[in-house]
């Protein structure tokens, strides 16, 4: 048996580590690229969302490389992701591939639907699976913590690209983690590498929150590497979702730092019910960032994504009430980097001029006080 799972940012760290612990052989399909997307879009229905198209592309690449077992997450809706596995199985079977599909349902659909499939492929006991899960998580969380630091500090680097370089080194350091006990040590070393990048902390930067659909936010190919693009243009970034927060068993979001209940509370006056995916969290985070004095919000999501289209409908009123500019990007296989860059440049110009004006106002006010 040779298993494979889809790519999404650095989720392979978590899943790879987990499969190693469970003694399951697997191969990693190539990271998401134009090629993956073209392949996926060829088989996936036109109005399906981008993550499905990339999943299909990953699976085809994996099957061509010799995988015979595909591992996919399940779900209970209401967003489409929960039914992806079923759809992908049909699309790939209709395309003529032969394989076995393992769907891992979230524990909320019943504990056995969650561990059962893992038990079947690994032959390990539930206790062993539980332990493996507990041991794999801290490592993945370390990757998230490192990423969070990079997003916040890249804007201060003196030499352009220095943070990205240090980040790569730091990733190698984290890869050495082989068990939970080693996490703290290596994480400290990795964070120190990024912290050690020469910085100009007096530099004036823009503070921007990135919100939206989880897959787009977590996968650099899907989001056109927008974070690095912004970081080297002096934008301090915080992001609404990280890999371990997304799959984590708690609603605390330890990396992102805001709990789901708090987000729902913040969003209440604008969106008073969950709508699947990150729809509610997107509205909640916009308000959270606005309250923290951020300069602007970037909203990213796939074309036809239901929860985020709802959020997009609602966010303009949030932006108006809290006086924070929001820019939306709907992403599909036709989205080009150049077009996104042009719109982003104009957006950053707007944020800078607002910032300058606000500073002037503040200055005038303080003079009046004197």
């Amino acid at each position, binding site marked *: 048996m040779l298993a494979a799972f889809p790519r999404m940012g650095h989720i392979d760290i978590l899943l790879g580590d987990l499969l190693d612990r469970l003694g399951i052989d697997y191969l990693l399909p190539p990271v998401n690229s134009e090629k993956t997307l073209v392949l996926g879009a060829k088989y996936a*229905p*036109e*109005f*399906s*969302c981008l993550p499905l198209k990339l999943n299909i592309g990953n699976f085809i690449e994996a099957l061509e490389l010799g995988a015979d077992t595909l591992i996919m997450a*399940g779900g*209970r*809706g*209401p*967003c*489409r992701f*929960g*039914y992806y*596995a*079923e*759809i992908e199985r*049909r*699309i790939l*079977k*209709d395309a003529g591939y032969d394989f076995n599909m393992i*769907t891992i349902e979230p524990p909320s659909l019943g504990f056995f639907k969650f561990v059962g499939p893992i038990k079947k492929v690994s032959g390990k006991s539930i206790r062993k699976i539980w332990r493996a899960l507990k041991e794999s998580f801290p490592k993945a969380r370390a990757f998230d913590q490192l990423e969070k630091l990079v997003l916040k500090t890249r804007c201060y680097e003196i030499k352009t690209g220095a943070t990205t370089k240090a980040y790569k080194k730091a990733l190698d350091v984290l890869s050495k983690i082989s068990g939970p006990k080693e996490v703290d040590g290596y994480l400290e070393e990795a964070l120190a590498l990024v912290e050690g990048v020469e910085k100009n902390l007096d530099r004036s930067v823009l503070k921007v929150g990135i919100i939206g659909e989880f897959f787009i936010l977590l996968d650099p190919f899907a989001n056109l590497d927008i974070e690095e693009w912004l970081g080297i243009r002096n934008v301090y970034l915080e992001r609404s979702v990280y890999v371990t927060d997304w799959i984590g068993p708690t609603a605390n979001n330890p990396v992102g730092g805001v709990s789901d209940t708090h987000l729902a509370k913040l969003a209440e006056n*604008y*969106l*008073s*019910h*969950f*709508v*699947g*995916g990150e*729809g509610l969290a997107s509205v909640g985070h916009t308000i959270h960032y606005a309250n923290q004095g951020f300069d602007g919000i970037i909203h990213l999501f796939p*074309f*036809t*994504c*239901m*929860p985020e*289209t*709802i959020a*997009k*409908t*609602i966010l*303009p*009123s949030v932006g108006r009430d809290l006086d924070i500019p929001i820019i939306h990007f*709907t992403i599909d296989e036709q989205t080009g980097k150049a077009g996104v860059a042009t719109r982003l440049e104009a957006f950053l110009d707007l944020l800078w001029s607002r910032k300058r004006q606000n500073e002037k106002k503040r200055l005038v006010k303080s003079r009046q006080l004197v």
Partner: protein
Amino acid sequence: MKVGYPQALLYYKYFPLWERFLGGLGAEVVLSGATTKNTVSMGTIAAESELCLPVKVFYGHLLELKDKVDTIFVPRFVSVEKKSYTCPKFLGLPDMIRSINDELPPLITPKIDLDKGWREYFRTIHELGSNFSSSKRKIFSAYRAGVLALRDYHNQLQAGSTPIEFLEKKKYRKVKKTGLKIGLAGHPYNIYDTYTSMNLIKRLREMGAEVETAEMLDDNIIKREAARLPKKLFWTYEKEVVGTVFHWAHTHSVDGIIYVLSFACGPDSLIQVILEHELRSDTALPMMSLVVDEHSGEAGLITRVEAFVDMLQRKKMAQLC
């Protein structure tokens, strides 16, 4: 009190229930009327461009009503059975509506969430009724009358009437039957809205075809057929579409299927795969998918439908010979 009722989305499913219920409590229920070009253009201007046509149509109906009524009925349908949901757009509908720029009258937005159980549901009904009456007995007897009206509606549909004929008392001209029967699948707000569907049912009948829809089938059959999916579909209304098409595919009780879907509809994009997968063999029933949006042209649609009906007719003749 005048309660506006937008003639869109789940109107086709539940109108008799809410009309009788609210009416029984003394409210005057005001319908927005059939969808027109004006409805669609108003909705398209007011709604976020990426929303699906049915939601834009809902916006249009709501805007047509807003100055004529004291309040508008915009329920939040979260789930209509255990462990299921409706489309996320229904979950967020009242909030989306509230973000419209125009001045709106107050909205009545009961949350229907049957996954939470009947107790919770009846609490919602009581709360909803309390807007109109303080008597618990009156509220529940009005509700019971609503349920009976809904049952009557379902019976009429199963006897072969369409929601348009029943709700709008429209009569279709009798046409000569050719013995051809077509299964029309898709969301009720797509296939029964005469504007969105470009009067598809009427046209098919005029071409001599008998039309069957999910609403005319026994619920239990649909449920049983949908249960053949290896993983239960968590959207109730889409499960109905799948169960219906599975039933036709299984029994060949129609000659062909027309599946109407909305452009950029999330659930439709996935069930399309399920339906095509089911109907992929050579002996399977022919199915045509019709994608509708605010830009679909009438001429193109008619040509396609005519060609499809012709093809089915020829196939049927060949089988008879």
